[in-house]
């Protein structure tokens, strides 16, 4: 009896300590971003769907469900000792690669906007294995690069090569889709992880060079599909095409710009309600923030992201565990480049790619993956003294 009691107490204490171990700032910032995101997804869809005889809350409801599932996954990721994750990582990676293989099989993968990135599930749900792959790559690389079988200060070249192989296979499969945005983000995370791992500097330099050359060759050799080239070209000259990708970019800029300092007010953006920007609940959700919340609101979102990323750095710096540090670094780099790519595209700073905005865009796979990422950061934070 007392044994059971003691075990329960122990259990409760461990749970309490875990909750106490959460970074409160990180939790609050993510909570705020999720709340803002929910409002923006609703704002992006309610008017149009209601006016066209559909359920105006369709996206709102599904978005909330996605958040719930994502929070459960995040919590799960937090409570598992991340050191245990190492054991699961090969399976996670394998599942990611398998999923990336499946999307390429005609009939199983579905094509959206020229990229075969999705597996259609019954009930209108879709899953994007690339999101899963991001996590698998970050954990897998961190695992290899943090194990010290020798006395050296950082990983050896052999370990770097091994870790690169972990990233290369999913990346190659994503190139086949093709999904330039995800490749960009993964590449940024890979380089960051290797840099922070203490690997020889020549590796970092070499990888940066490869990234630049790779991009150049890809365009020249036609590995990047015409669709991608179009998107890149419209980035260079947004006025070249009035209806296609250039149209979207221009509409996005106009919508954000028209918000001005204080915005039109939530739910009151005529550009948003007229749905002049396509994909405005997913990839272009930041236009809704721009128009309806203005510079003050959308700037505040940027500040929230900045706080989130800075908390991540703080955790990475404080942990004594090299594996945890690399996972944190990878997650921060992933978030940062995904945010920059998405908002940069909306504001006309980056070429158009289909990446969602973390915590805000509508979309299950991205929501799950980013919240799992937060789970990883919280996990490392919770065990800072452990």
């Amino acid at each position, binding site marked *: 009896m007392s044994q059971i009691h003691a075990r329960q107490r122990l259990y409760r204490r461990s749970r309490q300590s875990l909750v106490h171990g959460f970074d409160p700032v990180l939790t609050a910032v993510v909570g705020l971003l999720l709340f803002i995101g929910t409002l923006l997804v609703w704002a992006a869809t309610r008017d149009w769907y209601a006016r066209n005889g559909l359920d105006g809350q369709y996206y709102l409801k599904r978005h909330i469900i996605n958040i719930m599932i994502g929070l459960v996954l995040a919590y799960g990721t937090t409570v598992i000792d991340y050191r245990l994750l190492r054991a699961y990582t090969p399976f996670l990676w394998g599942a990611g690669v398998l999923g990336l293989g499946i999307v390429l099989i005609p009939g199983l993968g579905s094509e959206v906007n020229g990229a075969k990135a999705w597996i259609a599930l019954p009930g209108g749900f879709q899953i994007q294995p690339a999101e899963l792959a991001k996590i698998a790559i970050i954990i897998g690389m961190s695992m290899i690069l943090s194990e010290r079988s020798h006395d050296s200060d*950082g990983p050896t070249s052999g370990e770097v090569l091994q870790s690169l192989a972990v990233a290369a296979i999913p990346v190659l499969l994503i190139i086949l889709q093709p999904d330039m945005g995800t490749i960009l983000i993964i590449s940024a995370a890979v380089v960051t992880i290797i840099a922070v791992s203490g690997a020889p500097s020549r590796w970092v330099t070499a990888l940066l060079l490869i990234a630049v050359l790779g991009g150049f060759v890809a365009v020249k050799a036609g590995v990047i599909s015409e669709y991608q080239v179009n998107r890149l070209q419209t980035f260079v000259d947004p006025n070249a095409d009035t209806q296609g990708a250039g149209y979207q970019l221009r509409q996005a800029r106009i919508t954000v710009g028209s*918000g*001005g300092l204080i915005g039109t007010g939530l739910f009151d953006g*005529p550009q948003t309600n*007229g749905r002049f920007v396509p994909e405005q609940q997913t990839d272009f959700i930041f236009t809704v923030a721009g128009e309806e919340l203005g510079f003050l609101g959308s700037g505040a979102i940027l500040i929230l992201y900045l706080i989130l990323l800075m908390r991540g*750095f703080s955790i990475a710096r404080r942990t004594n565990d090299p594996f945890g540090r690399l996972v944190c670094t990878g997650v921060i780099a992933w978030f940062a480049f995904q945010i920059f790519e998405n908002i940069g595209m909306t*504001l006309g*700073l980056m070429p158009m790619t289909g990446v969602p905005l973390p915590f805000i865009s509508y979309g299950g796979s991205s929501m799950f993956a980013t919240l799992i990422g937060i789970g990883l950061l919280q996990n490392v934070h919770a065990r800072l003294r452990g």
Partner: protein
Amino acid sequence: MNNKSRLSLLVVQILIVSLMAALLGRLFYLQVAAGPKYRDAALSIQSRDVVAPATRGLIVDAYGVPLAMNKAGLAITIDRIAIDKLEDKGVGVMKRLATLLNLKYADIYQNTRLCGELPKGQKAGCWQGSRYQPIPITKSADPDIALQIVERSDAFPGVDAQPVAIRSYPSYLNVNAAHVLGYVGPLTETDLLKSNGKQYFRSETIGKTGLEIQYDSFLRGEPGIRTVIVDRKESITRESQNTKPVAGDHLVTSLDVRLQAAVEKALKDAVLRGRANGNTSDSGAAIVMDVRTGRILALASYPTYDPNAWEKGLTVQQASDLFSEKKSVPALNRALQGLFAPASTFKAVSVVAAADAGYDLNANYKCPSQVQVGTRAFQNFDSKNQGSMNMKKAIAVSCDTIWYQIAFDEWLRDGGLRPKSDPNDYFFKAAQSFHITEKVGIDLPSESSSRLADRAYKKRWYEQNKDFYCNYKKRATKAQQTPFLLQLAAENCIDGDKIRAGDAVNFSIGQGDTVVTPLKLIQMYAAIANGGTIWQATLAKAIVKTDGTVVKTFTPQKLGALTAEPSTIKFLQGALREVVVSGTAAGAFSGFPIAVSGKTGTAQVFGRNPNGSLKDDTSWFASFAPSNNPRYAVVMMVGQGGFGASTSGVGVRQIYETLFGVTGNKVIPGAAIFPDGKPPTQLPKISPATKPKETGK
């Protein structure tokens, strides 16, 4: 954590902060710095202006009879953007439409081409508006046919039918007045770009010429604008502004429909009479002016066109005919754009010159068959020697040689080919005293200035042409190398900048390079009739709102006064009366019960017609009446019309018959156009239902 890792982490952190800072900076630029620009861009994406055109104001005559009004029409329109998307670019649709509307396919095709799309010279009938407005093929479609089109929208993609207000020129008594009224049409891109403070909308119509353009800002009114906010599918989400159209104001003119109709008929009859006498008679103009105000009571130009053709749907043929030389360019308003040598009507100026030079107007002068001027003999009209006569008689019988002699003597006195530094130039100065080179200032667009071939003109002319004449053998074509023309060229090269004896002599009888518009001549004769006042010619009397409030009245303006002695003017009036009593116009006016004064003119014209025939003489008659108390001036000109008296003189008599209510040499009581003997001064009540009054004939 080793130092290398720590450093790398710091670098990554700095990089990421910089990226976020870049986003924040860009966001600030887009939303705060460039925010207003993007707000405007967004507004133009979201908002659509639905323009309800205002009802155009009426143009009425002095008694309120509408000359231009509006009626409901049914427009069949083609949407160029829609038909261009069809596989055959809409050829099938347009062919079906042509059959249904009983029009020519080629016309529909041409009417739907934007003027900018077509090469120069093939623009006749093109659409002057933009691609974004539905292009009307006709505005007076049969309702049954329109219904067929709307019901079979699958067979007629991009074609629509809708009720529209159309401009209508009601043509009471067969009145045309096209050159006065003008017509309306769609806005062009240049109209849209004009920054005259008024906002134009693509769907509006605008006056294109005549009074319609002159007073467009009053006639047009303010279109109603409903601004709606639309979504990406162009469905309306809300209305942001709704202003009702304000109807345009009415324009009251000094014209009289009955007189205008009579003037048009008299002009046409004169042209036909000229042709019956073997002349080409390709053009003409006739004007009636109130000599005490300068107001225009009627104004006609020949050939003319149908101002209703635009709203009916102008065919390509009609459009190209308007500017066709073969059809004598009907678009041209001869009354103010036609420049013709005034011939003997100009002797009124010569009388003033002679008086100024000190010649006794009551003395006798010789009228020989010819006058030797230098090496050339200048012939009298028909080379007749009429003996000695006083100047009044000389005007009446239109003796030329008396003027040759005076002009030659004065030319010699001024130094001849070596002119004095301060020549008297009585003839040029007399012409200038009539303000000959100033415009008459009529309220119609594109009035031409008359030209005085004085010393300054000769100098300008020489500067422009001396290269041609001094290198004549090189510059001129083979056909131009006749001995006569070669000699002429040599003379022109040597002293082409000087007034030569021949120029001076020709000037005195209204020949040579001096040319006037019929409107200028009537202004000159009105000045003689009223004792010396040069009035600005005006058509508009007032602008009146739809509720009857007078917005603006146009008071007659004096442009100047003749400097001639009152006795000279009195002499002139008498001499001009003598023309009709016993002179060249006696036949044309024989038995006419009202005293008319006037002068015939028969001007030689050099050059050939397109068919190779030599050009016939310009026929003029300039006049005023009643002679003892002048009220009206009437001028008629028929280009290549032959004799002044028989072609134009008779025509002017016809106009006076209507004006004074004369039938069979008798004044019928109550038949005169203006029963009080003068045009009405009161403004009329304006209603589209007003019909012309019976004159009691």
